[in-house]
């Protein structure tokens, strides 16, 4: 039986089996790499007050302190609701933020209905839109949800 098996492996039936194995292996590797292209995310929530009152429609953006990761680039953002609350999203609604150190920027602009781009003029006078100058920082670590509490902004 064993010798028969060896003969078969060395014979003509070896090639298709080998190709199939290599193909299956490749497919497995490719499938896995596609699955793992997303980074794990952890919930980040908060509330924005402007001059002491909650404001709807403020855009909250995160900027990685190391810059955009070229291998697995992510962008995390959210808009505040009527109570000023926001839940940051990266891939799916409310899924959170990948691990890392971030600068948080805030903008109170509006959606341009023609171009469908959210933009200025910023009612917060561009005080919180520069990632290098914003005083708000965030460190997201594995398995630890973040509640930022009430963030006080001002138009003055």
């Amino acid at each position, binding site marked *: 039986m064993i010798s028969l098996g060896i003969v078969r492996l060395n014979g003509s039936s070896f090639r298709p089996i080998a190709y199939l194995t290599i193909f299956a292996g490749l497919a497995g590797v490719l499938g896995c790499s*596609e699955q793992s292209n997303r980074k794990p995310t952890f919930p980040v929530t908060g509330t924005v007050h402007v001059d002491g009152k909650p404001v709807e*429609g403020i*855009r909250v953006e995160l900027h990685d302190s190391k810059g*955009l*990761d*070229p*291998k697995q*680039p*992510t*962008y995390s*953002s*959210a*808009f505040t609701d009527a109570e000023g609350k926001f839940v940051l*999203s*990266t*891939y*799916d*609604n409310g*899924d959170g933020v990948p691990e890392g150190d971030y600068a948080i920027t805030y903008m109170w602009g509006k*959606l341009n*209905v*023609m*171009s*469908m*781009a*959210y933009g200025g003029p910023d009612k917060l006078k561009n005080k919180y839109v520069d990632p290098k100058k914003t005083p708000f920082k965030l460190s997201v670590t594995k398995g630890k949800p973040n509640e930022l509490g009430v963030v006080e902004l001002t138009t003055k």
Partner: protein
Amino acid sequence: MCLTSSLVAKRRYAFTLVELLVVIAIIGVLVGLLLPAVQAAREAARRMQCSNNLKQLGLGMLNYESTYKSFPAAYYVGEPAGRYNIQPMAIGILPFIEQQNLANQYNSSVTPSNDYGPAGVANVAVISTVVQTFVCPSAPSAQGRIYDGVLPAGSLPGLARITWRAAPSDYTVPTGVRGQYANLAYAAYPGGAGGDRHGVLRATVFNAPTTSKIGDITDGTSNTFLLGERTGGGTLYSGTTAVTLPAALADLARSNGGGWGDALLGENWIAGTIGNPPTSFPEGPCAINCTNVRGRAFHSFHTGGCQFVMADGSVQFVSASVDGFSLCSRVTRQKGEVFSNND
């Protein structure tokens, strides 16, 4: 002897209860196997019709290009300011998709609008006619998706609010890539997201000379989208779920450019969004089937992806899990990316 033979004969002409039950069980199993297959076949047939429409529109555009030596403008805005002449892309290709009658009824010196006199209203009657070539059968019924469009005051300098009524188009013009989708897609690309990120069709605004010929598609006609799917009408979707917008955002759906004769169909810079987006529709890494909001994503009711007609007239199905770089490369016509066409 006589008795037994008659008994045997009787037995031969009848089924037993067990036999009947077995037959019924087999039929039940077969139906159970077939029904889902029939449903899948119906969707496959609708998708084929949908891709055939795309092909017709693509050929119509290419024939337009060979007749006029340029593709139609994604949309056209002529002066004078205040009461602009705003023209949608699709009017020009009507004669090339066997809709000469509709084209004859249309007056291209007046914006199709309820607010610009009888000629504008007559144009509205034309663009609110359902044209089956612009309808993907996988999407909900076209008659139910005729909607009231609006361009809010000040969308163009000095423009007063105008309204119209339009019949849906499930095919859209990708005018380019921008925003966070482009940033993420070009994160590892030398030079990043800068440079020319225009699609094939260009808008002509205030008579600015923009041309788009076959020769301008230096990335190659087989590698560049001409049109893609985006579910039209006045309903916004998050995934395949219709979204109820808060009153303050009601104009968002009416300005979504979901009609074949709606000029806003031609203003569609893909910025991506996230899975199951909320009504703020934030930008993000998903540009296929996450929403039909203009300037965010391509959208269809097919499982797992959207169809596109390329500038060479072929139709491609692109998976929803497509790499951002690969999709952006196919939207842009001159950026010169080297990419894999396999997903």
